[in-house]
């Protein structure tokens, strides 16, 4: 998505109604952010948006990048936000060998997750129940507590590393990834060192 360097654009202040809407859709997508929402989007903070190429929008608070959005689809966290609140985002883990591919913008393929160093959600994890969105998280050995569906935002952790290395949307459900063991899993990710990471948001 952001393989090339990005040119910063002027930022625009968001109206308070737009800020409220953003806050709501953020919490709807990432319920685990609920305890931190005041810290991420303080009511008195000045939230701004920046237009990026290919109909992407980046949301920035006091020069700190928070989220980006492609043409009205789900809000995706900027990696710097993931680093601040890693437990709030469903994650999978790639093995060490896959790291350099992901960091060069390649599509993440299933073998990088199904190998010994990779981690997919626990087998038979219960799907989310309405009203129990807070009851999910890393349960054991770096595995998320439920299967993640195709189209869900996902954070990509890496074997032997503490911090996340990429963010994207699942091109296949994690149960399907386990069953098939091949094929693309995350395409067009935002990764460490890409154009979005290097963008000057000051």
């Amino acid at each position: 998505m952001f393989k090339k360097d990005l040119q910063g654009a002027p930022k625009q202040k968001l109206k308070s109604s737009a800020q409220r809407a953003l806050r709501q859709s953020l919490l709807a997508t990432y319920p685990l952010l609920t305890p931190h929402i005041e810290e991420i989007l303080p009511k008195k903070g000045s939230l701004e948006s920046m237009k990026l190429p290919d109909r992407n929008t980046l949301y920035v608070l006091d020069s700190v990048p928070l989220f980006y959005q492609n043409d009205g689809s789900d809000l995706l966290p900027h990696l710097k936000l993931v680093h601040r609140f890693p437990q709030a985002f469903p994650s999978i883990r790639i093995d060490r060998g896959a790291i350099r591919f992901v960091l060069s913008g390649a599509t993440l393929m299933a073998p990088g997750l199904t190998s010994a160093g990779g981690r997919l959600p626990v087998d038979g994890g219960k799907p989310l129940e309405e009203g129990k969105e807070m009851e999910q998280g890393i349960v054991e050995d770096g595995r998320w507590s439920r299967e993640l569906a195709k189209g869900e935002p996902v954070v990509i952790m890496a074997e032997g590393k503490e911090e996340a290395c990429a963010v994207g949307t699942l091109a296949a459900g994690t149960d399907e990834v386990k069953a098939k063991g091949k094929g693309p899993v995350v395409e067009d990710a935002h990764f460490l060192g890409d154009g979005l990471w290097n963008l000057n948001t000051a």
Partner: protein
Amino acid sequence: MADTEQSEAPVELQSRNVIYCGVCTLPPEYCEYGGTVKKCQEWLEKHHPDMYARIWSPEALEAATAALSIDAQKRAAKDAQKKAAKAEAAEQKQANKLASSVVTIKRIERNKKKFVTAVIGLEAFGLDLKKVAKDFGKKFATGSSVTKLPSGGEEIVVQGDVSDELEEFILEKYKDVPEDNIELVDDKKKK
């Protein structure tokens, strides 16, 4: 503050403050994937020795390579080499660019006995022309402003004939500009 859902409520986490590499900007554990590993290591050792010891310890390095097959190790090494070469080439290119960049200080006669001095090319040395123009104005207590050139670039125009003083001031204040790269030009009015 009392929680409504007592024991089941998730523990409140605070925003973590992650350290980023001062050279390549990534979390230091990912420096190995960039092309500036040597510089990253030097930076980390100086600024966060504890982190340096953890990330670059022999044990950590061994664990990192043991997980990869011989084939994958070879490919990774080749990849790292390529990246390092690329970063080096970029650095060299920048150095060459600086070496060949010229700052021109031009004395221009506007009309009889009235001169202005134009300075062209400072931006190549990473200087902000607006700030520099302000510095000039203060130093020489005279008008100094940034104006557009027909070629598309910008120059700083200082009122008065201050060529020699300007050269001295530039060398003293902006250390990135080498003396050999400054040229003085006298733009006489055509008679």
